[in-house]
């Protein structure tokens, strides 16, 4: 949570797209930007990308108001994937309310995926967040390519963890919205207990999700 201000009736949430370099995090946000309605959605801000590689971060913001008048901003960030930008990753991960881990489905990337996931675990705990509790989805991206790790393999690894896994292609737009909606739903439930969004603010889970995922 970036900010909650009772008086200003303002809640600012942070969702982070994490993962190894070039797995498709920026493409995910581009895809959301293209698919979703302009209503309540800001522009995609890409901070200085160098040769396709994010050295800072990307940001796609959303804004909505509950019937009670609570203003909710949802800021969706990507992190730079390269190992050397760990400091930036931590700064982005600070106070995150939910994480989408974008893995690269290509068989050759298996190692990078697991290194990056380890890094996520470490950094979450460094910034005081618990990977067991934080809303989390995993994307196996680039499903449109040929030489990719097969689904059975993925299931065998991830199903025991209970973390929802999406097979996506950010390039083709497959599964991008679904995984984002899942992350939004989980995030809603994790803060609803504390802020009573449904009771006090008249915002239901499905309303929250649909406001963030209305197609243009």
């Amino acid at each position, binding site marked *: 949570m*970036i*900010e909650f201000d009772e008086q200003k009736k303002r809640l*600012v949430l*942070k969702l982070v797209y994490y993962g190894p370099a070039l797995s498709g995090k920026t493409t995910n946000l581009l895809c959301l930007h293209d698919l979703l309605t302009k209503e*309540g*959605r*800001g*522009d995609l*801000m890409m*901070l*200085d990308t160098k040769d396709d590689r994010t*050295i*800072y*971060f990307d*940001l796609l*913001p*959303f*804004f909505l108001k509950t019937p009670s008048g609570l*203003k909710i*901003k949802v*800021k969706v*960030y990507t992190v730079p994937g390269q190992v050397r*930008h760990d*400091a*930036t990753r*931590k*700064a*982005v991960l*600070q*106070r995150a309310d939910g994480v989408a881990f974008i893995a690269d489905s290509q068989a050759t990337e298996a190692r990078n995926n697991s290194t990056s996931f380890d890094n996520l675990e470490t950094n979450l*705990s*460094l*910034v*005081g967040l618990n990977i067991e509790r934080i809303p989390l989805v995993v994307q196996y991206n680039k499903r449109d390519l040929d030489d990719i790790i097969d689904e059975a393999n993925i299931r065998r690894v991830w199903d025991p963890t209970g973390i929802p896994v999406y097979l996506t292609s950010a390039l083709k737009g497959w599964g991008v919205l679904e995984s984002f909606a899942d992350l939004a739903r989980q995030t809603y439930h994790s803060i609803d207990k504390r802020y009573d969004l449904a009771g006090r603010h008249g915002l239901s889970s499905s309303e929250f999700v649909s406001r963030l995922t209305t197609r243009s």
Partner: protein
Amino acid sequence: MAKTPTHSNGKREDNLFFVVGDEKKLTELMTCQEVAPLLQGIIQAGACYAVIVDDNSIRLWDHGRPETNRATCQVSKGLFLEGEEVAAIMVQGVQDNTPLIQGLASLAQTTLQGLAQNNLKLMLTTELHTSVVNLSQEELLAVNAKLTASEARYRELAASLKKTVEQRSAALKKAHSRLLQQEKMMAVGQLAAGVAHEINNPLGFIASNLRTLAKYIDRYRQLISALQQATATLPAEGQEPLQALSKKLKIAFIDEDLQELLGQSEEGCHRIKKIVADLKGFSHIDDGETTATDINIELERTLNVLTAQIPEGCRVSKDFAPLPSLLCQPALLCQVFVNIITNALQARKQGLHLKLSTQKSHNTITIEISDNGPGIPPHLVNRVFEPFFTTREVGEGTGMGMAVAYDIITAMAGTIKIDSSEDRGTTVTIRLPLKV
């Protein structure tokens, strides 16, 4: 900056002081120096008032003055930051300008949002950079150069927008003034054509009747002188009653006066004809085209047409040098002269001295029109060529006369300037190049 959570093992990590995601206010993202030129541009383009208010209706920046007297239109556009409407730009103008105001509001919205977005990007990058990223000096320089370039692009955009708006509004005003002037001249032309027609017909038969009358009178006189010769041979008592009658009827005086009456009438006719010709010539209903023009004649004509406006006791001096004819549109020149002379004639009510002079140097014709009026205050002299500028009471002048004059003379590759001082009155000097 947010509070830093303590690492689980109790050690504080320096780079964890920084949290990405702090909310920024619009006032942090835009400075007055950035916003002011845009708002100024909006006012210059024809709006009365432009204001940016935040979501609590608090005024952040404004320019111009709200219009309270005339019917207005107001166009408000939201300013969005990260999808949230954080402020609004409101542009107000007179109702007649509604499409312009709408256009300006949209233009301002786009520019301001672009500015905010770019500054936000700049700020986030700088923050993150100074707080977290450890790039090499080279990389840092490259990044900064890139950011400066994109920032410069926005500044350029804002500046060129201002310029475009200014140019467009100037062009609009010019077109507007030309239209008005054209309308006026068309009305004058039509009037002149009508008047010329109405006057020329009766004038034609009066003149021709006068000539006939002179002929007839001549015949009577021949008869009378023949009769006089015939009666001279009569005896004295026969002549007497005729001489008495002739004396009673003052025939000798009539004979003499007739000549004068006829002469005066003919001269009157001639003058009317000339006035009509001037009127026609002035409005140039016959020749709206480019022709070889004698500027002295055009000045003379203009003065004749304006006769009714010359105040009583006004002294008009003319000092015309012989001029070669100039290839131009005399109708336009007449407009210029009317506009300037009309101003001069209004300079003072009593003791006005209007001076018109023309001169020729080897390739320039210089025309000077001056009055001995109270002059134009120094701080206003430079503004008299602005469209809609007037020192007169509202309704007395359109404030366009000098702007139109400037426009026309400039189009003829000439120059026009004003010298004015309180003790010497005002002199307008026009220089026109003679084509070689």
